[in-house]
């Protein structure tokens, strides 16, 4: 999977917006931005600086970046702009060494670092990680329709546990799947595409007016166990060829190792035999580590969602 240039741009702009960064300049190909304190902490990797600011209460000076999404077009823009500007005077002494002289780099807080963001670039990865770190756990309510405020009867809301699972199928290679599941803590009803349902709703962090939240009948633990059971059943119904093949490879490799070490393990010298035995064990360990098929289910994020109860 990957992301197109447009998707990356949208993504980064969304992140900058959510973290309340100040946009200084923007074109279809780039954005220049002064980071908010939160984004600065997420992206610039300066824990000591922030520790200092927090201890002393000094006014923080966040960093600025120019994120370029379309380097080719942006460079063309720059070149065009440069053409229209007068050329800087060449410095006689420095010019002798460097030919055309380039302006001295600006240092300090007013310096704006340029970063080309493409899929796979470390800065984008950092933004991804920041989103993962700060978007782990939510507690939300479906916003009520405007009419709700006027009606007499409070709307009944039903609490759901929603979890975005990641399933990793590993051997010496790996494949992943995402599953977005929800369970009603009131009725035990399962929504196998809970994520899609959430996308169609407007969600707010505060309880809307004139809303009645039904008490839960399922404990959170029961909810979790049910979701895990569903995942397990699904996985077990999957084609297991990949795991069988990995096990075959594992057995073949183990046979090779056995073949190699059988003779060596007959060494009459106890000392040497012990060494060989160690090597043998550790090689077998490595091989299992490499090939043994296993499945890990973790959650990317989760939350409690209070949604209008549709009886």
């Amino acid at each position, binding site marked *: *999977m990957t992301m197109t240039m447009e998707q990356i741009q949208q993504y980064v702009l969304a992140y900058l917006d959510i973290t309340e960064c100040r946009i200084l300049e923007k074109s279809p190909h780039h954005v220049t931005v002064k980071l908010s304190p939160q984004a600065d902490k997420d992206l610039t990797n300066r824990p000591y600086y922030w520790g200092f600011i927090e201890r002393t209460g000094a006014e923080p000076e966040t960093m600025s970046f120019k994120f370029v999404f379309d380097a080719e077009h942006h460079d063309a823009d720059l070149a065009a702009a440069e053409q229209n500007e007068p050329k800087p005077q060449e410095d006689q002494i420095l010019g002798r060494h460097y030919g055309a002289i380039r302006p001295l780099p600006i240092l300090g807080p007013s310096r704006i670092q340029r970063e080309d963001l493409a899929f796979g670039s470390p800065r984008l990865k950092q933004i991804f990680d920041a*989103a993962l770190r700060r978007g782990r756990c939510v507690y939300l309510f479906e916003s009520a329709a405007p009419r709700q405020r006027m009606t007499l009867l409070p709307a009944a809301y039903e609490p759901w546990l929603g979890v975005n699972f990641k399933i990793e199928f590993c051997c010496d290679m*790996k494949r992943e799947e995402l599953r977005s599941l929800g369970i009603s803590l009131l009725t035990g009803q399962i929504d196998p595409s809970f994520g899609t349902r959430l996308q169609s709703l407007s969600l707010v962090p505060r309880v809307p007016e004139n809303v009645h939240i039904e008490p839960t009948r399922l404990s*959170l633990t029961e909810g979790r166990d049910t979701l895990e059971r569903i995942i397990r059943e699904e996985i077990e119904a999957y084609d*297991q060829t990949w795991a069988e093949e990995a096990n075959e490879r594992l057995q073949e490799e183990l046979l090779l190792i056995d073949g190699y070490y059988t*003779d060596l393990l007959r060494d009459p010298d106890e000392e040497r035999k012990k060494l060989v035995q160690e090597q043998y064990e550790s090689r077998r360990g490595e091989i299992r580590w490499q090939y043994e098929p296993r499945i890990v289910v973790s959650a990317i994020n989760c939350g409690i969602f209070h949604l209008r109860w549709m009886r």
Partner: protein
Amino acid sequence: MNPHPPNPAQPLLQPAPQIEFDRSWFEDLNSRLDKGGPWDDWKLFNLAMEAENASLVSSFEEILCLSHIHGVEPLPHQTETARKVLFEMRGRAILADEVGLGKTIEAGLILKEYMIRGLVRKALILVPASLVLQWVRELNQKFAIPAVAQKKQHSWDNDIVVASMDTAKRDPHKAILLNNEYDMVIVDEAHKLKNKKTTNYQFMIQLRKKYCLLLTATPVQNDLSELFNLINLLKPGQLGGQGDFAANFVVDKRIPKNEEKLKEELSKVMIRNRRSDGDLEFTKRIVRNIHVELSPEEKQLYDGVTSFVKDQYHAAGGDLSSMLSLVTLQREVCSSRDAVFVTLVNLSKKLAPDSPLRDRIWDLVGIIKTIQANSKAEKAMELIREMNDKVILFTEYRATQEYLLKYFRERNMTAVPYRGGMNRGKKDWMMDLFRGRAQVMIATEAGGEGINLQFCHQMINFDLPWNPMRVEQRIGRVHRLGQKNDVKIYNLSTKGTIEEHILNLLHEKINMFEMVIGGLDVILERFEKEHSLEKSIYKILLESQSDEEIASRVDSLGRSLHKLKDELVKEPPKESSGTKLTELMGG
């Protein structure tokens, strides 16, 4: 994203893979519920999902890393090698490409792919000390892999560490490394692991690793058992036990048997791309020698310096070792008066105030003052104007470099310098300037990595190093994989000087300018078993009485080099095993 270490408690054979539930999310949720928050932002919640969706590893067998890599465009054979290692060899392989085909790129691709898939978090890269920084730089720049060079003991805590083998195998580092386990270990120049009695080998055997790449251009140097040892680091048993291997595959230590079978077994653990395999053809080298006539003043300086150097040599009783700075003088005089001047001044500073040599030196300086123009610089300028294209000009001397910068500048030719002593940032900057607006780069250094000038295909040797390997390094900067044009090489040599003889030797006798890369080092290695080529040239220069004598002695030097070359070409019958072995690996 966590790679999983083996769990020895598990039974070995399982009908279905175990499913492990990571419940950290549940604890997190519960604790937030207890404390009534804090709760995360719904939009970030969605961005997190979007990120995971984009980074999802959706299939077992598909190379994902290409869409993540922007610092390098891998060549087809490199991608294909990565694919084979990942999906057929399962991450344990010997990468044995011939020199210059990009083993580092292949290793980087493989490492990156595993990292993207979350199968490698901790990796250890062991390389010769001189290559540590270069590896770090390549991994960072080309693959955006956050590798660090091992400097202090705590460096080992980083996920991706590049270190020298010599450091790693010594305590206290060794103990730390052996206590760890690595998702991936890469060893560059792995032929240093061919002998299983060495500490290198013992260390590697003890190191715990999941995936492992061994990089070497010469998997077999002398003996088939070297290959056997190397493979046993990766996959013991692939070629059977020691006894089986000897019985099944070896006739003599250099002659294999059951080649088909051996080839097949090898192909399961080793990949060797060769230059002759097709798409990897290099472009041609076109050489033009330009003979420059010295002006009378320049000729006078040359003769003056030559006789000065010779007299000193005889006075020193033919002892070469004390003569090095003087020989330098002899070489510099072929380059520029500026270079000679600096050395002369330094020389006179070292002499006693009443030394009679001082006068001779000042006489020479006097001649320097009479020189108005540099014939070579004029010629170079003319050439550059003529080609009207990017060109890299090499000189051995800093003073010449300075002079040329000034000379070109005065004539409105944009030129940038490049020196070994520049720091990394400055080197990169100069490269950028050259790629951008400067027409000429004037470099004093060809060795060392980092100057890859595929975008330029003209080079001028303003003066010639007397060591052919250095000439080859210079050419290698432009004539490398990725160069799309034929490379034009201009050699400037001054008539009636030693330079003419040297050029004659390198060009006519061993035809080194047009030789395939990789051939020269073998010839030189053999030649220099007895004596260094550079020293031989010094001796000729210092001991000859006349120009004719120089010519004839250079000629005989050339013949002995030529003979070595012929021997190498003809070697197959004598060394059939060697060729067969290489063929074997090619398969």
